[in-house]
């Protein structure tokens, strides 16, 4: 199973790398689809837990992919998944970064940027929706999600404090 799984991880995540418009969080729905729905590598709740772990740790958000790879196929899985999700987009970025300056102020460049913004927003909202459904299975969990979202929207408090508070509420047995 292991080599086949590694190949599958490499393929899925390198495709993901090239379609991750707007960054790591926008491919959350697609990761969920691939990992939970298509391959059945883990449950939705486990997926949400790995995502939470990655959010609570330092480093780029994309490291959730390392955790997924690790969960699916151990350390080799983590390395393969991380390399796959970063490799293709890094090569592309490297190639384009040299010529980008030339297109400063080009009309198509502005249109591509403007056209991708709403798609990115839609993907972010879809990610929030799906991860909420995966993470929350009680009214109190939904309440924590809603309050966290509201607090982040109206204050500049560091998310780690909110994670801490939510963890304590969980520890108290209220979720």
């Amino acid at each position, binding site marked *: 199973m292991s080599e086949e799984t590694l190949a599958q991880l490499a393929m899925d995540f390198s495709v993901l790398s090239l379609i991750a418009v707007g960054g790591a969080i926008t491919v959350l729905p697609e990761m969920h689809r691939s990992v939970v729905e298509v391959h059945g590598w883990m449950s939705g709740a486990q997926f949400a837990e*790995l995502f939470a772990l990655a959010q609570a740790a330092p480093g780029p958000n994309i490291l959730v992919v390392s955790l997924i790879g690790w969960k699916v196929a151990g350390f080799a899985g983590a390395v393969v998944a991380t390399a796959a999700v970063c490799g293709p987009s890094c090569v592309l*970025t490297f190639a384009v970064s040299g010529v980008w300056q030339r297109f400063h102020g080009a009309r198509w460049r502005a249109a591509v940027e403007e056209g991708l913004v709403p798609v990115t927003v839609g993907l972010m909202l879809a990610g929030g929706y799906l991860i909420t459904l995966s993470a929350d299975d009680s009214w109190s969990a939904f309440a924590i999600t809603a309050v966290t979202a509201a607090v982040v*929207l109206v204050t500049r408090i560091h998310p780690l404090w909110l994670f801490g508070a939510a963890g304590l509420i969980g520890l108290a047995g209220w979720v």
Partner: protein
Amino acid sequence: MSETSSAEIPAPRELFLRFTQVSLAGFGGVMPFARRMLVEERRWLSAEEFTDVLSLCQLLPGPNIVNVAVCVGARYHGVRGALAAFAGLMTAPFFIIIALGALYTEYGHLPAVAALFRGISAAAAGLVVAMGLKMATSRRLRSAMALFAVITFIGIALVRLPLVVFLLGAAPVSVAAALWRAR
């Protein structure tokens, strides 16, 4: 804050170390820390250059902060610089997260840890919801283009279309609409 970048050319080792520092400081998003390091502390980029690099990195696929590291590294030392910055950004957090994952697998079944994580997972989901809402209410979306955000949400979250299929269909239309609006 300076408007011009300094003439200093950082060695690959320096790129590696600075990006390691930045990534370890970045809980829940590294970009603000990267900006502070690049623009204000090291002055490797001016504020304007940073904005330009960032807009490219947001436009290209892949994790934005990883793309920024590649761009900045490539600017000074080509492939070697890009690899140094990328490795700096990823290596330390990678091992930290694998260690956390191992701990979680070992102790995750304990009722207390499971309960703790039910709370944290719910909060982490709230963070994503907030990011989405923040972007949705930003100034850049107050136009008919917002329709494409709605279509994307429906296609991905509700219909559960594969992202490749959806993007091939919707992104060209959205970009064409933006071009048409800009006439």
